[in-house]
């Protein structure tokens, strides 16, 4: 599940007097993901190292001049480019101290923005819609600039992106309430113009965000009524001729965000990855009408993944660079790290067991000195402190690897090394921090194991499953891998901890378990709790009710079916399978399933296995239905209902086969009697239910009784 971590302040803001804007014009990534250039709305540009929250440089234009476009960093030339007073392009390097002494060039038309993607060439977008590469523009600064936009058409938003080595400038305009999207391709230059479908009259999109995926530009836009639409534009679209009619742009409603009352005023939505969207300035669905929330939504499942209340006024501005959200609010610019792991339905619905929910709320305002000084966790803290992680990174950067590095390592390193590093990572880092990458870790391990028959790390995988951060849908091959490698312990763990094992896999497990020879099964080391449960159950085979009052005859300890042959016991009283096999089968019985999906897979079992399985179920049923059924203290054990359901399912799946099998006759008769007794029980319960409901009704009625003394007031 996506998570927002504890944020930190990058710098203070000087918002306008009436708080109408945040005082920040733009934030652009600098040389790497840890450096950003922040341009304020008046005169200055600051360079920050984000993780240190430290300004590295600052440039200011002269009084009376204004920066009209956020500064960008040209990583090819290591130069900064900005525009002052709409027409003056300024270019400087980090070592330049005074901006006035740096390069200046005045162009003939007003510039809307200079864009520069990382590693790309700077592009200048003029207010009238023309686009020039910076280099070619500077070659002849006073060259005439054509007008692309119509009268009264104005740019609202623009972005520059590189898709398949093609550079694009995408911008949206507004003209008398109509909104248009322009996709300008550079080299060769083509321009596509689209008309956005109209939302309710009088409202225009509050924010845009674009991303490139699968050869398509995906434009995301948020309306004040909370509707978030996505439009997909092909990058290979035909270039439109000059003056051609704007194409209508189809859209799909991605999310309808809750807007408590009125319309959104300052809100912004940003695409984080294919599924996740960060939204700011929209009310949290469970926190009333306050709009000062930063939320991550999963657009595929329409679920809220993470939310964070931001103190102070929200300006509706939001940037994101390398898993960090930059958000101006109140009088500060905050950086909030986030994580959007590959989403599964289970995690999207919060079904995956984890302590994420309370974690994100717990404030960690006071950093621990221990952490900072010694760089290690003195006490397991569940909260994430950026200061702490930062110091962690600093002090441990040499010996230990980050999750990403470990991922890379898994692909190549030897079994021992992988085990060591993954275990190290798991023990080192708080599991809550790691949670999003656990899935990736497991998936990488599994894919390596599948590809390389020599590679298998059972303990590591078991450890990962034990974290309970994993589910089947995140790593669908894990269970089958475990089966393939006959790692029954891992199978057991998966069956225990995965909430979403498909019926086909459950059935595959069942098939595998029931067909393993007992000898093999006994070799596996399984969860001791479930073994001890099964042991008690089997030790009572001779009808001994020996555990009462704490007295247990030693001769029956660890009694297995082998040494029971001496005493004459009716056959259905003997466990038909070995201890470990029984433990594994129990796990299968306890998984969640739906009959319709399970039934077809159950039909694949061969008749011998079916009979064996039914015998085992019969044995379990008899054990469990006895009055002296041990109430295992908190141990996982199949309930009577689960056993009965499985009996019915297996019978349904194989009824004709069983009827034809002579050795199954006695079994069927026995099972029939069980079902009969269950039916009787249920019918008795049904009778009681009626009376109990009556009782319930009686209570609701306020009984005044024959006599009461009351106080009333007349007005």
């Amino acid at each position, binding site marked *: 599940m996506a998570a927002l971590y504890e944020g930190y302040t990058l710098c203070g803001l000087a918002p306008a007097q009436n708080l109408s804007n945040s005082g920040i014009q733009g934030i652009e990534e600098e040389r790497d993901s840890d450096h950003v250039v922040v341009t304020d709305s008046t005169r200055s540009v600051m360079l920050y190292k984000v993780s240190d929250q430290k300004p590295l440089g600052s440039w200011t234009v002269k009084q009376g001049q204004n920066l009209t476009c956020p500064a960008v960093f040209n990583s090819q030339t290591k130069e900064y480019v900005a525009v002052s007073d709409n027409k003056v392009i300024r270019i400087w390097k980090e070592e330049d101290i005074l901006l006035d002494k740096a390069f200046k060039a005045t162009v003939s038309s007003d510039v809307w923005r200079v864009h520069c993607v990382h590693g790309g060439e700077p592009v200048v977008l003029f207010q009238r819609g023309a686009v020039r590469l910076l280099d070619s523009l500077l070659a002849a600064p006073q060259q005439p600039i054509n007008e692309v936009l119509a009268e009264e058409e104005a740019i609202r938003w623009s972005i520059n992106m590189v898709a398949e080595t093609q550079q694009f400038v995408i911008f949206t305009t507004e003209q008398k309430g109509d909104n248009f999207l322009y996709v300008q391709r550079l080299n060769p230059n083509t321009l596509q113009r689209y008309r956005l479908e109209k939302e309710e009259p009088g409202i225009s999109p509050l924010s845009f965000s674009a991303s490139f995926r699968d050869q398509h530009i995906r434009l995301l836009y948020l309306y004040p009524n909370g509707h978030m639409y996505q439009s997909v534009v092909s990058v290979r679209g035909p270039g439109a001729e000059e003056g051609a009619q704007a194409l209508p742009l189809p859209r799909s409603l991605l999310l309808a965000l809750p807007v408590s009352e009125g319309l959104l005023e300052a809100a912004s939505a940003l695409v984080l990855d294919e599924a996740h969207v960060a939204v700011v300035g929209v009310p949290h669905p469970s926190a009333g009408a306050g709009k000062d929330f930063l939320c991550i939504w999963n657009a595929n499942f329409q679920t809220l993944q993470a939310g964070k209340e931001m103190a102070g006024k929200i300006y509706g501005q939001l940037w994101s660079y390398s898993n960090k959200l930059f958000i101006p609010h109140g009088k500060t610019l905050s950086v909030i790290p986030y994580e959007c792991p590959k989403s599964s339905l289970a995690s999207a619905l919060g079904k995956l067991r984890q302590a994420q929910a309370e974690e994100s709320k717990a404030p960690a305002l006071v950093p621990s000195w221990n952490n900072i000084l010694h760089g290690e966790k003195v006490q397991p803290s569940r909260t994430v402190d950026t200061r702490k992680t930062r110091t962690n990174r600093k002090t441990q950067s040499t010996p230990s690897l980050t999750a990403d590095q470990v991922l890379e390592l898994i692909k190549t390193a030897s079994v021992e090394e992988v085990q060591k590093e993954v275990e190290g990572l798991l023990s080192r880092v708080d599991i809550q921090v790691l949670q999003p990458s656990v899935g990736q870790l497991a998936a990488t391990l599994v894919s390596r194991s599948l590809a390389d028959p020599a590679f298998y790390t059972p303990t590591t995988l078991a450890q990962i499953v034990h974290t309970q951060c994993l589910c089947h849908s995140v790593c669908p091959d894990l269970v089958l891998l475990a089966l393939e490698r006959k790692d029954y312990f891992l199978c057991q763990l998966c069956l225990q901890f995965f909430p979403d094992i498909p019926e086909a896999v459950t059935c595959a497990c069942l098939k595998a378990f029931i067909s393993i020879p007992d000898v093999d099964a006994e070799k596996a080391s399984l969860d001791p709790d479930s073994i001890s449960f099964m042991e008690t159950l089997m030790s009572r085979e001779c009808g001994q009710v020996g555990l009462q009052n704490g007295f247990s005859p030693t001769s029956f300890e660890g009694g297995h079916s082998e040494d029971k042959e001496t005493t004459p016991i009716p056959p259905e009283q003997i466990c038909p399978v070995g201890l470990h096999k029984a433990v594994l089968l129990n796990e299968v019985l306890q998984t969640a399933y739906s009959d319709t999906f399970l039934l077809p897979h159950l039909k694949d079992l061969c008749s011998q296995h079916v009979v064996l399985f039914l015998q085992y179920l019969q044995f379990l049923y008899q054990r469990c239905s006895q009055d002296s059924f041990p109430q295992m203290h908190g141990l996982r054990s199949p309930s009577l209902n689960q056993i009965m359901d499985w009996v019915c399912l297996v019978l349904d799946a194989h009824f004709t086969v069983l009827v034809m099998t002579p050795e199954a006759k006695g079994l069927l008769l026995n099972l029939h009697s069980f079902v009969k007794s269950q039916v009787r029980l249920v019918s008795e319960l049904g009778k009681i239910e009626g009376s109990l409901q009556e009782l319930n009704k009686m209570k609701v009625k306020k009984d*005044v*009784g*024959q*006599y*009461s*003394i*009351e*106080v*009333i*007031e*007349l*007005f």
Partner: protein
Amino acid sequence: MGEFKVHRVRFFDYMPSAIRAMAFNSRSERLAVARADGAVEVFNFADNYFQEKVIPGQDGRAAEALCWVGQRLFSAGLNGEITEYDLENLMPRYSVAAYGGPIWTISSNSQGTLLAVGCEDGTVKIFEVLEERIQFKKNLDRQKGRIISLSWHPSSALIVAGMMDMIRIFDAETGHTTHRLLVERGVGASKSREVVVWSVAFLSDHTIISGDSAGKVQIWDGLTGTLVRAHLITKWDVLALSVSQDESSLVAGTSEGTIIQFQFISSTVGHKDKEWVRTRTFKNHLHDVRALAHTDTAVVSGGMDTQLVVRPLLDKVEKNTQESALRKIAFPHKNLVCCAKKAGLLLFQFPEHLELWRLGESDGYGKPGDSLPVKRKPEKLIELKRKGEDHICCSALSPCGGWMAYSTLSGVRLYRLQHNNNNISITKVSKLPKDLSSARQLCFSSDSSKLFASSSHSSVIVVALNQSECKYLHTLKPKSGSRQPVHLLAASDDGRWLATANTDCEIHVYSLDKLKLHCTVPVYSSCPTAIAIHPVTSSLIVVHADQQIFEYSLARKEYTEWSRKLQKQGLHSLWLERDTPVTHVTFNPRNPAHIVLHDTFMFCIIDQSLPLPEAKTLLYNQMTLRSVPESERIRHSHAFKICKNFQHLMCVSLLEDHSLVIVERPLQDIMSQLPAPVRQKKFAT
């Protein structure tokens, strides 16, 4: 207004008796209802369905059928006697044996000269109605099997009789059978059982309608004796039929509690031939509908579930008026509970016995809405069985709790109650004055020194009481010479006045000092349902069946200023729309401006010092007043403080300690004591 401690009493196990028969006199608009315990009640439909008269029952004398002849009311019962009632003295006038075994039915011809009764022995006996009595005239041809139902042809020449398995038409003159109509039995198991023709009706066009135990309503041609049409309307019995005066509509009551209406209309539009078509079904009863009356505008029904239901036919009345509302009369329009204000005692009147209870106590205090802990439970002190066959018709308890009296048709009994500590002793006062032979209404003076008993011709007998004996003092008689009985008595607290009201709507006030008539209140068209004399101002409060309230000053012999104001402004429409009469009026000793009165569904404290509600103001405004801040309440409040927290009220009274006594008899409790109905229709059964 303030807080009241309320004794909420639900231990009065009053159980009304099932309705057996009814007869509607369309000329006087009075409905006579016979109940299973033998009591006969007369409702005045012209005066808000007020229960004017109650003739108390008698053991072993239940009426099976009722019949009006002009203004005279006759009944016949399974005791084999025909009884005429004295509607002035509220007692049977005489009984005549028919000598034909139990009588199932009685019917008079349209001229009102002849009465026919159907007897168990198979005879139809004709009686002549004379001035003061009835006289046997003749028997019609005797038949095999009992006569269950009878109906005269409007021409009086023919009589139709419903019997077992058949209907016969007699010539009233010769007494011979002219036609014999065989009624088909039910199908299946009931094939072996005789079918009972519970009810027949003979229309002027010689159509005969019959309702039988096989669940059929059949329409016959009386001239040819052929079956025209049979409607199967129930799986059970059709017990009662009633035809409207103009013979265009008829209703049939069944054991299922449904009433089915048939109308004589043309089945297709524009077609001239009319026929009886089943049109509507009403379901207002849980149990058998034993008796039906089809008035011009409504269907009146009654049966096992003891309620009298008036269901207006919406094609005959104006919609959304008071007239179009369904009325259920479940409780008698008179007091069966007497409260001794000073002693905190309650006297409950049953037909068979009296119960004297002491109220419980609580020493707690609580917020409004609280139930206080009951320190001492209420206690039944005395259960007094009546003597003789006649049912108790009235009773009284003196305010001090020292005297108790009841009356049956045959006599008055007076008891002296003595309380010492927790013991109570009861002694019957043996020698009563001869004049005090029977009373319709009893009342003690507030100081318990006098007993007033209403007697014949609107007179009131005054008896003086002291420690051991009682002495006849005087008989108060009005000058009007009304022959109607006094049904309401009210003595003033200061012992100076006694007010009486009779069913001629006259109200007389006597001075007890002078033992003579003080004044007569101007006669109002509606019958008084409750009267009381104000303890401070000595003005008389009268509430009428049409819900009007009057205040009459006894000192000045005129309506008071407040009363005039009330009449001038008019009562609130919602007040006038209530469908149960006010049966009791009392006063608040702490605040003379307060008048406490109640009907079945609410009690009301009228504060005479507050402005009267205007037509547009909210009448039931207690909830509003609760929600507004105290300072604003005065702006919203008006004189009528109505509390509907308590329902099915039998009595509301203010004790001397300012606590209210409210006696409830929830209708559900009555319903739960009824036998199971024949068939409860359940979904999907």
